[in-house]
């Protein structure tokens, strides 16, 4: 139970990071959203055996992490927490693809291991980019950005309401689960009928709460729309960031930079 509570404390913490102040935090949320998506598309667009060309992309999350003053250990822990699914699928690659692709001395490395490493690298890159986006933007601003980018308002309102009541209802669920675990020992009291009635109680309370929320919103003139009053403005810094990131990302994607880099350094060494 302690685990669940702490994971939700975590959720709160991730959003609280958005209240810090840094050049990255001050960027327009739309710009950050678009850049993050571009980054993810660039990373996953490589072939499955590509490893070396993916590595330079690590610059983007590292730079953002530091510029936005986010705690790297925390982000890393969150990445590790969700790694099992990608790991579970990727781990079959070395079993099925045994053709040797790379020699390091006498050590032969099969294509499967390379594609596995590539997959995990992509996983770390994409997940960290998404987490950094939330940590330096905040959920409300992201929803605002979505609304301005043309996402239907019903969906944006849904996201905002969901996020608002998430904490209330998870607190309630945690209280229910704690009460149950204090009245039963080991796995007793974890049977389906018990849980079903717990969930049903929670559902009934939720329906009542929805009714109260609706009435309260009606009293305040709710007409099916939430009006977000925060102004959004794209300034020169935002444009510069977008142009810079786009150029850098597309450059990394399409230039064959690794051998070029290797060659350049090699050239320096030999001259």
């Amino acid at each position: 139970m302690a685990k669940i509570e702490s994971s939700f404390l975590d959720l709160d913490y991730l959003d609280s990071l958005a209240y810090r102040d840094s050049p990255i935090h001050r960027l327009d949320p739309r710009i950050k959203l678009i850049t993050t998506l571009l980054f993810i598309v660039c990373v996953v667009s490589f072939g499955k055996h590509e490893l070396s060309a993916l590595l330079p992309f690590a610059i983007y999350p590292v730079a953002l992490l530091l510029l936005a003053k986010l705690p790297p250990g925390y982000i890393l822990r969150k990445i590790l927490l969700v790694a099992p699914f990608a790991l579970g699928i990727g781990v079959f690659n070395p079993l099925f693809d045994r053709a040797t692709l790379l020699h390091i001395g006498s050590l032969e490395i099969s294509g499967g291991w390379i594609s596995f490493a590539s997959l995990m690298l992509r996983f770390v890159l994409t997940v960290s980019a998404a987490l950094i986006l939330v940590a330096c933007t905040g959920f409300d601003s992201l929803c605002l950005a979505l609304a301005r980018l043309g996402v239907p308002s019903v969906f944006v309102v849904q996201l905002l309401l969901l996020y608002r009541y998430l904490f209330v209802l998870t607190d309630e669920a945690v209280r229910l689960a704690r009460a149950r675990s204090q009245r039963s020992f080991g796995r007793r009291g974890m049977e389906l009928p018990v849980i079903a009635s717990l969930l049903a109680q929670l559902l009934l309370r939720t329906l009542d709460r929805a009714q109260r929320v609706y009435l309260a919103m009606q009293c305040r003139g709710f007409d099916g729309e939430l009006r977000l009053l925060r102004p959004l403005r794209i300034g020169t810094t935002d444009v510069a960031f977008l142009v810079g990131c786009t150029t850098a990302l597309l450059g990394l994607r399409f230039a064959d930079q690794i051998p070029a880099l290797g060659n350049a350094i090699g050239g320096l060494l030999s001259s």
Partner: protein
Amino acid sequence: MHMADALISPLVGGVMWAATAGITAYGARRLKAGGDDRVVPLMGVLGAFIFAAQMINFSIPGTGSSGHLGGGMILSILLGPYAAFLAMASVLTVQALFFADGGLLALGCNIFNLAFLPCFVAYPLIYRTIVGAHASEKRVRAASILAAIVGLQLGALAVVLETLFSEVSELPFSTFLLLMLPIHLAIGIVEGLLTAAVVTFVGKARPGAWAAAPTVAPLPGSGRLLARWLLLTAITGGLLSWFASTRLDGLEWAIFHSSGREALSAPATDAHSLAAALQERTAVLPDYSLPPAADRSDAGEVAATGGEEEEQWPDVNLATSFSGLLGATLSMLLAGLLGFILLRLRQRH
């Protein structure tokens, strides 16, 4: 069950994004046309309920593992397919953003697998058909279980297909299917049992609860519109991926196998060839390999012109690996150095 960004290709992600964006816009329009704004807070709070319900685990008898409520089916029963789809989509969006459970690019796939399939396929075709007009407890139970199973099986199948089309995993189709379907059969049975138990309990405790929940009836002809739209998406996606796999990946595959490199940089312009010439002259590791031995001197040209000499492909020599590794290490060092400099700058402020 949640697809990750790393497991899909941009093409698959893009097609699924387009599909779910279309369905979301359609669902939002349908909901607005319904004109009942009572559904707005209800959707929001019920979406939060799904999160909360997933925190209460229960033990599956005889296995030692535990399961929890999935969400798509119970939301559909409570809210009707349109509102349930939007609520489920919002749950998945929050999971992607805050828990990194499924990625941003994979969000389209996840919404399709875990929201569209249960809400628009399993619910109307299975649940509504079995329950019919007069909902008895037995029917509700059977319908919930069956619909949850079918929804999850379809979702698992979709995960397999999306991974397959993305060509990232080496898992053969049948093996992957055999891994995914039985697991999700078990999960589906458990979810179905739980859904049925909750639905019947609420029905008994408060008989009016289901009737009170606002439902949005589909307008006549809307099903056909949706079907047509889906068909269009499927055809576009299929054509695009076929084209991409025959033209691009096939080519890359051949080049890859013949030269041991993923792609060849094409010196198309003068600037390119000038840079290449400069590189050739200055580099210790020209073109990724040590100065070629006499017997393989034309390997580079062969790969560049046609790439058909299959027998050469495992012949990736030490130098190729070495310059690849060198480049990779250098870029890692560069990233680290940049981080270090930024850290220093930050500390000085």
